[in-house]
Every structure is written in C-alpha cells, then in structure tokens.
C-alpha cells in the first residue's frame, strides 16, 4: 500500500507521451537500475530549464544526466520511487510539468502559497497570501480513525505534520506533511559570494553544520579546481568524524528517552556534552561552525589542542561503548527495540535510502568508502552493515560507527600533517562543481554553479529529504505509541529536508 497507488490527485497531468522528454535510466554493472542520488533543475542560457539527474552506478564518480526542457518531462517515479518527492519539488519550485507523476500535490509550499508562482524562476517579492486546498489521503472503513500530530510537537523538536490512520493502536497508514521549516535556502545562495555561501550551508541543518560546510566547500573547490592543504583536509576529517560521534551518541540517548530509560539517556547526554565542551576548548565553537571555508580552514588549529580533544574523544568513546553495551543487554530495552519499525531492504532500495538507516537495512553504502573525498583515501575504516532493519539494528549500527569514528579521530590527531591550512580560491567565468560527504545522517550531495565568483545556483541533496519517505513504510503495522521511537531511530532533520 503506497500513497502513490491509491488515487488520482488534482495536480495530475494528462498522459501525452509524444511531447514529453525523458531520460534513459542508467544501469549498474550487474544490470540493476542505478541508485538515484538527486534530481533538480537549474536555469541554463536564456533561462532555459535544465533538469539534472544524478545517479550512482557503483562507480567512483557519480553519473549526471542533463535534460534540457522547455515542455513537460516524463516522470520516472513509477520505476524509481525515490524520485517522487524530487519531481514534486521540481514542479513546485520551477513549474516543471511532470507527466505521469502519480501524486503532484504541492510539497514544499502549503496552502498559503498561490498557484502558479515558482520561486526559482519567478520574481518572489511580495508573493500574495493564498488559501488553496490540500488533500490528505483518507483511509476509509469501519473503525478507522485519523490522528493528526503536529506541526508543533511535544518536546524540543522541529515542526512537521504526521497524519496517522489507525485501527485501535495499529497504524494502517502514515502520511507526512513537512516543509514547515522551508526557508528558501537554495534561492538564498543565488548571488552570494563563494565564501559567504559557507554560512548559508552551515544553517541548513544546525546539528550537521560541519558536514554541510565541508560539502559546500568541496563543491566550490571542485568548481575552481583548487586543492586543499593536507593539514586542512585531515582536520576536516576529524571534525566530520566528531560530528558523527556526537550525533550517534545523542541518537542512542534519544532512543533511551523514548522508551523511558531516563538514567541512560542522561548519561549519554553527559557524554555528548563533554565532547561539545571539548570542541569549544579546542576551536572556540561547540558544533564546529565557522571553521571551514572553500580552500581549507579559516584558521589553523593547534596540534596540542587537537590532541587534548582526541583524549576527550577516547574517554567519551570508552564510556559510551560501556553504556551502549549495558543498554542493549537490558531485556526491557531489547523488547522495545527489536522488531519495531522494520524497514525492508527492498523498500529501502526503492526509496534510495542512505546513511545508517540504509546500512541497517542491508544496503552497503558509504560515501567515505565508495566516493572517497578529502583525507578518507589515507585512512582505514570498516563500514558496518546489518540486514534486520529494525530500531535495534539502527541503534547497533550507530554504536559501531561511533567506535570507528572515535578511533579515526585519535589516530589522525596523533599523525596530523604539518603546514598551512588555506589555499586561495580563484573563480573566473562560469564554473560548476559537485561534492559528496557522508554526513551523520548519510549521503550529502552539493551541486553548484557560479559566475565570476558569485553563486548562480546551489542544490543540496540532503539525506533527510531522501530518507523521510521511508518512515511511513517502517511505521505501518506498528502501534502508534512506537512512532516516536521509530522516528528517533531514523533521526532525520526537518530543516535539512525542508531547506
């Protein structure tokens, strides 16, 4: 049962196969369809719309297909379900007509946005307020009740709306409605200078700000064909792994909160805070904001302070691993985590899910290993994968990854290359660049275009945007009371998704 199969919607287009432009989906070596990485539009010469499809066919380089389009394009969502939200976003932001899409309801803009205004193409000053209609999927039948949750949730969480259809406690269907935190971020990049763009990238998803800043910086470096000094590269790796460590510790603590195990949760939060304070001591910022810029780092970090940080990391990792072992062997925790929120491997593959969520559902995928960037070529690490796909699997994957991140930080802090940390960036004429980073939530992909040092387009494929559509599949069939737990085990960013 998917949303897509159930009913036609007002936005649906007439089928007119002849006039539509379409791409040929690239295969992998073993004949399967390549994994969709992202799908977005940009404006080419004469403001002609260009549709970019990015695939991962199992090669070190991503494969990009560009489709120039003035008219409608053929939807690929029925063959590549992972494209469904991207095509809806194209329709909302660029007014691209996507023929054959099963569900073209507005995604990014809510009732307040008028029909026919496409911010990435049109002028956006003084857009009038509207009151258009939005239809939720209705599940009908005896005993079916609807539960509407959000956008404002109970707790210190970001806003988003969940519409459950339940029979008793069991969830029959869950429909997501997000983009409450949509801030027009991709549009804000337009016109900003290449260094200023870092600040916008840092504000896409605050808890993963360093991964975003590095991904953005790498995309600029790629566009300008500039290298990064080895020391800067190595320090970036430390920051990225620290961010993963902090995020995974916080997630495991959050899972404990959601099953009412507050002592363990407080313990995990204490370990997390010790790392944030160590970061503040090491580089003056708790979440590694403002550290990186295109070309390297804004300022050199002291090797001694990085060693101090790595000692804190060693302590934190040891404490966390002991704690995690105790948590996972507690029978009442096992009974809540095991078999809850199973994301099947075939569903995960269809939706091109990324990150720890994919690796918990049997998909062996890690940008650090598959598309190495920065200093990852020079370090050795394993990529844990399991196939159970439940909350327990996602907890275990994070615990294993946290240990690996901690080891990488300690190894590198002891063997940091010396030297400068910043190379100048020169950008003349029109340039394009891409970059991918394995953020704590999974594959983060930046695509940007600049003219004479000013950005003309920056697209962000955020792992949360990719993974959100998988949540309903993991929730259906569970009791509604397990939803917070399942949701936490995915740990998706609303702001990262909504941008």
């Amino acid at each position, binding site marked *: 049962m998917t949303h897509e199969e159930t009913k036609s919607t007002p936005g649906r287009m007439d089928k007119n196969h002849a006039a539509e432009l379409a791409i040929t989906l690239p295969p992998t070596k073993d004949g399967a369809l390549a994994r969709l990485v992202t799908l977005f539009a940009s404006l080419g010469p004469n403001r002609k719309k260009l549709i970019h499809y990015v695939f991962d066919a199992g090669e070190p380089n991503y494969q990009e297909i560009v489709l120039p389009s003035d008219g409608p394009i053929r939807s690929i969502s029925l063959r590549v379900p992972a494209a469904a939200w991207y095509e809806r976003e194209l329709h909302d932001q660029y007014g691209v007509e996507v023929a054959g899409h099963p569900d073209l309801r507005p995604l990014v*803009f*809510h009732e*307040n*946005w008028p029909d026919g205004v496409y*911010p990435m193409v049109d002028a*956006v*000053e003084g857009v009038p307020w509207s009151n258009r209609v939005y239809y939720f999927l209705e599940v009908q039948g005896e005993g079916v009740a609807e539960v509407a949750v959000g*956008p*404002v949730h*109970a*707790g*210190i969480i*970001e*806003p988003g709306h969940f519409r459950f259809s339940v029979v008793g406690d069991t969830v029959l269907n869950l429909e997501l409605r997000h*983009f*409450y*935190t*949509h*801030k*027009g*971020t991709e*549009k*804000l990049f337009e016109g900003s200078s290449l260094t*200023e763009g870092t*600040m*916008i990238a840092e*504000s896409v*998803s*605050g*808890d993963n*700000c360093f991964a975003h800043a590095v991904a953005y910086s790498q995309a600029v470096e790629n566009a300008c064909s500039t290298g990064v000094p080895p020391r800067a590269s190595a320090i970036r790796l430390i920051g990225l792994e620290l961010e993963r460590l902090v995020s995974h510790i916080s997630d495991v603590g959050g899972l404990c909160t959601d099953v009412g195990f507050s*002592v*363990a949760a*407080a*313990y995990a*939060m*204490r370990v*997390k*805070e*010790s790392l*944030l*304070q160590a970061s*503040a*001591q090491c580089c*003056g*910022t*708790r*979440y590694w*904001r*403002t550290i990186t810029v295109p070309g390297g780092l*804004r300022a050199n970090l002291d090797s001694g302070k990085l060693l101090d940080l790595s000692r804190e990391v060693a302590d934190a990792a040891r404490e966390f691993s*002991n*704690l995690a072992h*105790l*948590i996972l*062997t*507690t029978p*009442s925790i096992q009974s809540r985590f095991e078999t809850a929120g199973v994301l099947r491997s075939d569903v995960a593959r269809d939706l091109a899910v990324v990150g720890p969520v994919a690796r918990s559902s049997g998909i062996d995928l890690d940008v650090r290993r598959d598309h190495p960037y920065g200093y990852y070529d020079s370090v050795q690490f394993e990529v844990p994968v399991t196939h159970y796909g439940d909350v327990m699997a996602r907890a275990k994957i994070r615990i294993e990854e946290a240990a690996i991140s901690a080891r990488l930080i300690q190894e590198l802090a002891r063997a940091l290359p010396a030297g400068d940390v910043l190379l100048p960036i020169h950008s003349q004429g029109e340039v394009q660049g891409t970059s991918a980073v394995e953020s704590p939530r999974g594959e983060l992909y930046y695509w940007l275009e600049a003219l004479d040092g000013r950005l003309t387009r920056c697209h962000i494929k955020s792992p949360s945007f990719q993974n959100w559509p998988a949540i309903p599949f993991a929730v259906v069939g569970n009791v509604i009371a397990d939803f917070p737990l399942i949701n936490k085990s995915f740990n998706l*960013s609303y*702001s990262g998704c909504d941008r």
Partner: protein
Amino acid sequence: MIFDVIERSLRQPNCLIPVEALLGNCDGSRMPDVLSERLTLAIGQRVAEACPTGAFSIEEREGRPCLRLSYGECIACGRCVDVGEGAVVTAKQFTRCGLMKEELVRRWDLDGHAEITPVPSNPDVVRGQIHSLFGKALNIRELDAGSCNGCEAEISALTNPYYDLERFGIHFVASPKHADMLLVTGPVTRNMVGAVRATYEAVPAPRLVVAVGACGCSGGIFAGSHAVVGAVDAVIPVDGYVPGCPPTPAMLVTGILEVLRRRVAK
C-alpha cells in the same frame, strides 16, 4: 543490567556547573566584542564591510561617525575578528541575553574611541536575586518557528547533567497550555506563521515570550527570504531576546534569568 547503568551513573563525578559560573559565560559562542581604545574609523569601516548580516554598521550620530553593533543580527561568523586588527575580539563575557532589542545594540564613537551605550547590568548584582527568582516553578514550551535546529540542539542541552535546569524548578512542558514561557527559535517561516500564532494564543496569560538565536531575534541569515516572514517579533510580542548562532546553554540560562528578573522588577 538496568541497575548496572544506574550504578555506573552514580559513580560518575558530579558535573553540574554552578549557576554563578554560567552567568555571562559565552565559551564556544564566538560572539564579538570591541576594544574601544584600539578602534579607528578605518577598522570600523572594514568591519562593517565584512559583516554578512549588517550586524556591524557605520552610522552618523550628532555629526560624528560611530560604529553600531546589533547583537540580534550577529551570526557569530567571526569575519569581523579577522579584519578587526585586534580591535574586534571574540567575547570572553557576554551578558546581553534576555534584554529588549534596543539593549542588544552597542555604539562606539569612532572619533573619541569610546563606547557610547550604557553597560548592561552586572551579573554580580543579579546573583543575589537568583534564588528568589528560581525558587518558583517556571514551565517553558519550546517552539521551533523554522530554525535550522542548531538552537534546538543547545536548548536540549539545558536538561543535561551539566546545566540541569530542573534544579531551579524550570521544566520543559509538552503543551503550550501548561507553559508560562515560550522559547521561540528560528525565523518564522511562511509555513509556520499560523502554528506560531496558535501556539502563542494557547499559552495562558500572563505569558512570556523569549526569541532565541540570530534568526529569532532578526531573521539572521534568512532575513529577506521569500519563504520567511521575519523575526519572531514580526508575528507575536516578545519580552526578551537571546542572541547567538546558536546561543550556548550558558547564554540561554543567562537570558531566561534576565527575562524573569525584569519581570519580577516590574
């Protein structure tokens, strides 16, 4: 197993930070401060030019050039420190939390090398009042109006064993109907305006609203976006502002305390 966790936790040393050490602490916030004796017109102009959000600007007051710094707009990017030649530094103490918007603005006379704004209340004076303020219960409802979740991460940290807001009788509650104070983060997005108003209306009067972070205070880096309405005060009345990008837990404690202090003083 469950007891092992509790036992292990009890064996840990106490990490609670005393409230005196939190007031005015801004470690890790990267907020700027200006050393007026080193300030020159040229530095002021360079700093204003480097600032991406216009937090630093040059203005004319009574025919004299002066440097204006509005902390509400500052995203703590540190560009001013880079070009400030030692006249702009990363702050070691920061007490402008929980104040009204105009109190977040500082001005320096660029000819006279002196600050021409009043110095904020000394945390030492406040210290004696802490107990009477925190002796009563305060229920806070956190409301994300569209933030990047950086502020959420820091607000969640307030309940960890280092800051432990519960020790003062301050609780985060699930429903706005149980709340005395709304802690609002983020620029208010177009898609959140309705929910922000409804949440505000659901809080019983008398209610306090604190705008948190550069985005909550001024829209921050998102000011002017087509998908954003503006700062929190563009939608609901605000009683105090906590700047920062994101404000650290210590700044949040300082800010919440200051809003309460002013409320009690009224």
